[in-house]
């Protein structure tokens, strides 16, 4: 095989996306596994989002799942309002609101009647939060572990808010019993290959846009900030603006991943922006290689698929968390740049 071809990132990424195209054929349209594969791709995209902020810009965002969760809820709100009247109260009021004695649809739910608005909100609500966070964190020159603590805390605040405001958010149960996404004549059944291909298509587009960003001058400046923030500042760049921008790109991707996740899971739940998921993203990136978008993407798929496989097998039923922990420790010890770093070494 031509080695030079393997060094071209665009070609490599193209090959992976192309191979993923055949997954439903290999699975012979088995609904369970197609649904699983779709969720893995969504989580892979979530890892790509952290790769941009952590791997490229050096911002360890432990609360990355908050963007994912917000995206997920935006999609769920739109789909909920489209559910058949049988399950809803008068005037299309969502079922959980009826149970909570809410009489009128709250104002911030109103615009979600439009699916386009829901999709836009799924991207821009996370971006808006990233701008606000970035403004306070990076203008105040907060760096390192403090960023990790603040982002984690902010995510927990949003999580608690959603749990607390059960009347408007479904609380602990989340937003369930959603309408199937329809676009024109196409219906995206969570267990069918149509959803899989929709997710694969969106993922391919997002992955290549992300790749272009990281390869552009802005992407180089992100990496320069990771290596030596002060040097960048004294070259005349506004480091705070760039860091906020990196976080916005990351938030937009996480939001998109969250929306897709809602489509395949058929609900939105507060666990989508809870601590366990958020910390898992860090592990996926560490195993796959946080300084590589594809590495992080595959890291997420390998780890989550591994978790699924181990927790379902009888041999590892009680020990699978230990095995996953071991994988994480070994990869941090022996593959500081993750699987992507190992791949780079092999092809050199």
């Amino acid at each position, binding site marked *: 095989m031509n080695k030079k071809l393997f060094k071209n990132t665009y070609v490599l990424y193209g090959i992976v996306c192309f191979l993923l195209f055949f997954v439903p054929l290999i699975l012979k349209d088995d609904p369970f596994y197609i649904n699983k594969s779709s969720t893995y791709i969504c989580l892979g995209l979530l890892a790509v989002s952290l790769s941009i902020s952590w791997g490229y810009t050096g911002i360890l965002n432990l609360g990355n799942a908050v963007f994912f969760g917000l995206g997920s809820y935006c999609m769920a709100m739109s789909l909920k309002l489209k559910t058949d009247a049988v399950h809803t109260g008068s005037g299309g009021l969502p079922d959980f609101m009826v149970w909570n004695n809410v009489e009128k649809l709250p104002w911030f739910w109103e615009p979600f009647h439009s699916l386009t608005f829901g999709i836009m909100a799924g991207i821009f609500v996370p971006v808006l939060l990233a701008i606000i966070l970035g403004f306070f964190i990076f203008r105040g020159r907060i760096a390192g572990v403090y960023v990790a603590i603040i982002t984690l805390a902010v995510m927990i605040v949003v999580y608690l808010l959603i749990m607390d405001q059960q009347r408007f958010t479904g609380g602990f149960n989340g937003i369930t019993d959603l309408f199937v996404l329809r676009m024109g004549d196409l219906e995206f059944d969570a267990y069918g290959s149509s959803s899989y291909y929709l997710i694969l298509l969106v993922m391919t587009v997002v992955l290549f846009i992300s790749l*272009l960003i990281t390869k552009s001058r*802005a992407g180089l400046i992100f990496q320069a900030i*990771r*290596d*030596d923030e*002060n*040097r*960048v*500042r004294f070259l005349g760049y506004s480091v705070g603006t760039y860091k906020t921008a990196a976080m916005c790109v990351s938030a937009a991707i996480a939001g998109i991943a969250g929306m897709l996740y809602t489509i395949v899971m058929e609900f939105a739940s507060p666990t989508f922006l809870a601590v366990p998921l958020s910390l898992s993203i860090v592990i996926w990136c560490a195993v796959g290689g946080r300084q590589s978008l594809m590495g992080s993407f595959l890291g997420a798929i390998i780890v989550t698929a591994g978790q699924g496989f181990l927790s379902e097998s009888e041999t590892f039923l009680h020990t699978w968390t230990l095995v996953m922990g071991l994988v994480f420790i070994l990869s941090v010890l022996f593959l500081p740049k993750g699987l992507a770093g190992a791949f780079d070494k092999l092809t050199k």
Partner: protein
Amino acid sequence: MSKNKNILKLNSVVVDFDGFKAVNNFNLKINQGELRCLIGPNGAGKTTVMDIICGKTKSTSGKIIFDQEDITNQEEHLIARKGIGRKFQIPSVFKELTVKENLYVALNSHLGFFRNLFKFFNKKDQKKIDEIAEFVGLQNELDKTAQFLSHGQTQWLEIALVVLKEPKLILMDEPTAGMTDYETNQTATLFNKLKKTQTLIVVEHDMGFVKEISDVISVMHQGKLLAEGTASQIENDDKVKEAYLGKKGITNA
């Protein structure tokens, strides 16, 4: 006229670190096109002076005028945009990027995020980068990752980053620290080339190097300006001898 214009003026600048005056009523005037060496014993406040010029440290009182503009205590990146370049004592380059990528980041062009989003390397950039790489002698290292450069090469790379921005004034903090004799010589040649087009302030300990490159030397001691003059004037100045060697001079040391 423009040749002798003051490009930088420090008017009675004070930096007070919780009662310790690192810089105390310090005055300095730098002419356009000059190479000024700033020397002094350890703790004299040389690096602090550089820090307040480029905004890294805020001054307690006093004024800094650069190019007829008051830049006292402005934000670092805004001062940098006005044309002050800073090279640090500890070489600061982007370790995980290649030499070429390092230079591309420093290239004098748009600084905003959206102007750089989806902006890619082109032939014109390549030409500029080749020029500067040859100027500092890194033309054969362009594809090397910066962390694998030798100490001297790292210093030159940082100098290249600063020069690429085409600043009106460059501040160099101990550019030869930790260099071999050969590297120091190379650096002196580099500075004599730079001097022709640039205004520079250089903080340095190596007197051989200072004599090699300087026009005027300013000596600092305990946060104040002690003496100013050519290398031979400075060497024969009693106050300078005292500051460096103690009151009794070299014979009783």
